[in-house]
């Protein structure tokens, strides 16, 4: 293509009608990257974060979310459409912060170039009329103009100002500027916000979080099948999982016996042994709240505990149909717990138990009461079911729930459903030749959370940098000071001095700065004492 060819094309392009979309785009970009838009987006972001604190969120509290949905039948479908059960991963929330980030980049990048130029530049020459500036002062001095100018230059340099280099000719003024790093701090702050977001996103995309309930004495190997619940990021791959195993050897709790927090548990300590890799050396660790265990990139946390009564169910033929610790789920801080035992292969009939565990049972006026969470007087109290437990048709069921749709109640002589109450060591015989149930003992269980959160370091570095930048941006005061000196007309000689100061951040108290500079410019301190 020759140059000649391109000319007519350019001419065509310049026709106003065809430039309009581009103008529109430029206009839109300018709008998006304006301070005002950033401000409105910030407020929108704050507003958008509110619903997630009011409506239970699936990710942080799925049980609460389920309960809420059950209680609000009409609202639930609408809320679900709006993504209100997962606000912080919803499209509209993401749209706001992505727009904000685009706006930020669009605003900050051009400013960067601007700053770089400004930082290299000399302080600008004094405006022609200093007394027009809002903060100025003037006084007369007995010294000759060049003496005053020289002193101004020294004083301002000592105060950390960059002083404009003297030109070739005679000068009547000194220009000084300081606080260049403020803009840098502001830049660092804004760019660090992006860094934090990247770190946060990495954690969400490549990380995972899983939970497992481990009865004391049992071993957990870190692979997917062993988790009770597992919440991977969308780019997670199972190959990231480290090849460790953990055994909970023992678990201690300390119960407060008196004081305002009587009954509260503290001092949880799960004694672990673990292998970082299959066949590696055995190590041990006391896992406590606030003291997670790190294995490679994986962190392990102790986030819950409870009781697992050891129950043995023998069927009508005398064979063991179910045995071992059964995890009961605590319902509150007193560790009153609920649980289910299923023995689908019991002969001649299936057996199921559903009921409660009292760590510290007491009978108060005929009512069963749980005193506190310490297992000083453990009792299980369960109702008995038989018939079809729905476990043989291959549909998976929660171990904590009993499907009663086809099951039948086992009745007691008093005409009510049979309830068996057992203390450790006791055994009851079920009616109709169903079998027996024995309560052997109680063992604690721990709930461990296992997670990988890549990008944590990046996010942390980001916020720390942001803070440093912020400090610079807020506390460095960019200021310009000009001093102009004219020879006084009178016979005594001396000079007329004008000083002006400008705060470029809008937050500073320029009056104070100005009077300090003026003070510093005075030749004799005695002169100053006299005045004040």
């Amino acid at each position: 293509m020759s140059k000649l060819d391109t000319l007519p094309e350019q001419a065509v392009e310049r026709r106003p009608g065809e430039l309009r979309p581009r103008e529109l785009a430029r206009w839109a970009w300018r709008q998006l990257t304006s301070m005002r838009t950033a401000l409105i987006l910030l407020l929108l972001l704050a507003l958008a974060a509110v619903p997630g604190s009011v409506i239970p969120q699936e990710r942080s509290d799925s049980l609460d979310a389920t309960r809420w949905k059950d209680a609000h039948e009409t609202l639930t479908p609408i809320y679900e459409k709006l993504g209100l059960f997962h606000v912080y991963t919803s499209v509209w929330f993401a749209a706001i912060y992505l727009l904000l980030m685009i706006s930020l980049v669009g605003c900050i990048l051009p400013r960067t170039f601007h700053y770089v130029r400004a930082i290299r530049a000399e302080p600008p020459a004094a405006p022609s009329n200093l007394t027009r500036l809002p903060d100025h002062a003037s006084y007369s001095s007995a010294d000759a103009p060049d003496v005053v100018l020289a002193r101004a230059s020294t004083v301002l340099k000592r105060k950390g100002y960059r002083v404009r280099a003297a030109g070739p000719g005679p000068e009547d003024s000194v220009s000084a500027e300081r606080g260049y790093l403020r803009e840098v701090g502001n830049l660092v702050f804004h760019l660090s916000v992006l860094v934090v977001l990247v770190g946060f996103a990495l954690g969400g995309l490549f990380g995972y979080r899983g939970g497992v309930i481990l009865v004391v004495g049992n071993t957990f190997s870190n692979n997917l099948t062993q988790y009770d619940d597992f919440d991977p990021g969308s780019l997670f791959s199972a190959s990231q999982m480290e090849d460790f195993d953990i055994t909970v050897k023992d678990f201690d709790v300390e119960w407060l016996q008196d004081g305002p927090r009587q009954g509260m548990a503290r001092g949880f300590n799960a004694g672990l042994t673990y292998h970082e890799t299959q066949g590696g050396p055995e190590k041990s660790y006391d896992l406590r709240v606030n003291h997670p265990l790190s294995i490679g990139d994986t962190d392990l946390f102790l986030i819950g505990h409870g009781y697992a009564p050891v129950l043995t169910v023998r069927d009508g033929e005398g064979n063991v149909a179910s045995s071992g610790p059964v995890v009961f789920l605590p319902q509150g801080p007193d560790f009153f717990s609920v649980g289910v035992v299923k023995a689908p292969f019991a002969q001649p009939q299936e057996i199921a138990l559903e009921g409660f565990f009292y760590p510290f049972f007491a009978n108060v006026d005929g009512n069963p009461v749980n005193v506190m969470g310490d297992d000083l007087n453990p009792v299980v109290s369960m109702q008995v079911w038989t018939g079809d437990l729905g476990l043989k048709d291959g549909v998976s069921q929660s171990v904590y729930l009993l499907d009663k749709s086809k099951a039948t109640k086992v009745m007691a002589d008093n005409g009510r459903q049979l309830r068996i109450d057992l203390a450790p060591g006791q055994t009851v015989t079920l009616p109709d030749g169903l079998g027996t149930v024995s309560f052997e003992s109680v063992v604690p269980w721990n709930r461990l959370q296992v997670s990988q959160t890549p990008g944590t370091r990046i996010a942390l570095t980001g916020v720390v940098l942001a803070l440093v930048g912020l400090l610079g941006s807020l506390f460095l005061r960019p200021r310009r000071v000009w001093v102009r000196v004219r020879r006084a007309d009178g016979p005594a000689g001396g000079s007329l001095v004008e000083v002006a100061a400008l705060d470029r951040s809008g937050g500073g108290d320029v009056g104070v700065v100005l009077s300090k500079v003026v003070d510093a410019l005075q030749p004799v301190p005695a002169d100053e004492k006299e005045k004040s």
Partner: protein
Amino acid sequence: MTNASWEALSNQAVAACGIVYFLALVAHLVEWSAVIGKRQRVAGSAESAGSRTAVGGGVALATGGPAATPGDAGERTHRVALFARLGILLTTIAVVVHLVALVSRGLAADRVPWGNMYEFTLAGTFVVAGLYVVLYRKLALAWMAPLVVGFVTVMLMIAVIWLYEGVAPLTEALNSPWLVIHVMAAILATGAFTLGGITSAVYLAKARWPHAQVLARTPALPVLDRVSYRIHAFAFPVWTFAVLITGPIWAHQAWSAYWSWDPKEVWAFITWVVYAAYLHARATAGWKGRNAALLALVGVATLWFNFIGINYFSSTSQHSYAAPQLAVVQVVDTPSMS
């Protein structure tokens, strides 16, 4: 001394400082009523104390402090100055007693004294009053006196009447060195934001009723705006440090996720974003001044809602200041394996 006697000392000191704050409040109210009664006093006249003769032009120095120059003072001016001085003196004494209350509470509990809402309120009000006394001269805060002292008195009363809890060990998750650093930063920022909020509220009142007698003692709008900005500029990085650095580090250790959008975290984030918006507003044409001050008030509202509202109304928050909750997180996921 035993823990119990330290606790008793703390309770007595709280009562004592409450009374002294109240006396300081009375002194400032007398001061203000004298000001209101005194006509002719131009609102916020900037009597820059040592204004040099030669310094001309718009050198607006932030003053509005107690009238230090009696000049042609009548008896009223004298009374204003006297009660202003009495007020700040009483406030300073109260702050010292307040500190005694806080320290002895800590000695009673063998830990930092901010492990529950009562203690947090005690510490927060101390920061408000302490910062006020420290900044009294630097930022010429005399005009703020009745508001600050009144606020502190009321909050202390609320703390004693509704929030009181005996000394108790911490819940497990709170039992960490991060309690010292994270909560201290949060309290410091809360106190400072509260002072900033008071300044912004006065700004708005003054912008709305420029000639109101009650506001005669407050400085001019630009001074209020600048004081407000300087307090916020201090509080914002501290809040950033508390909420976005130490908070996540601690959350990671205690609850396994450094940020989990827990209601408390959500509102801390909202507060942060609102104050970022405030800082922006001050640099945006059309938002300067009134709108910025409004944003500062929104910010302080979110802050206090987070402290009081979330603790009382949200059952899902893991931050267990409000009630001695389950110390470890309950098992909430129902595993679906069979």
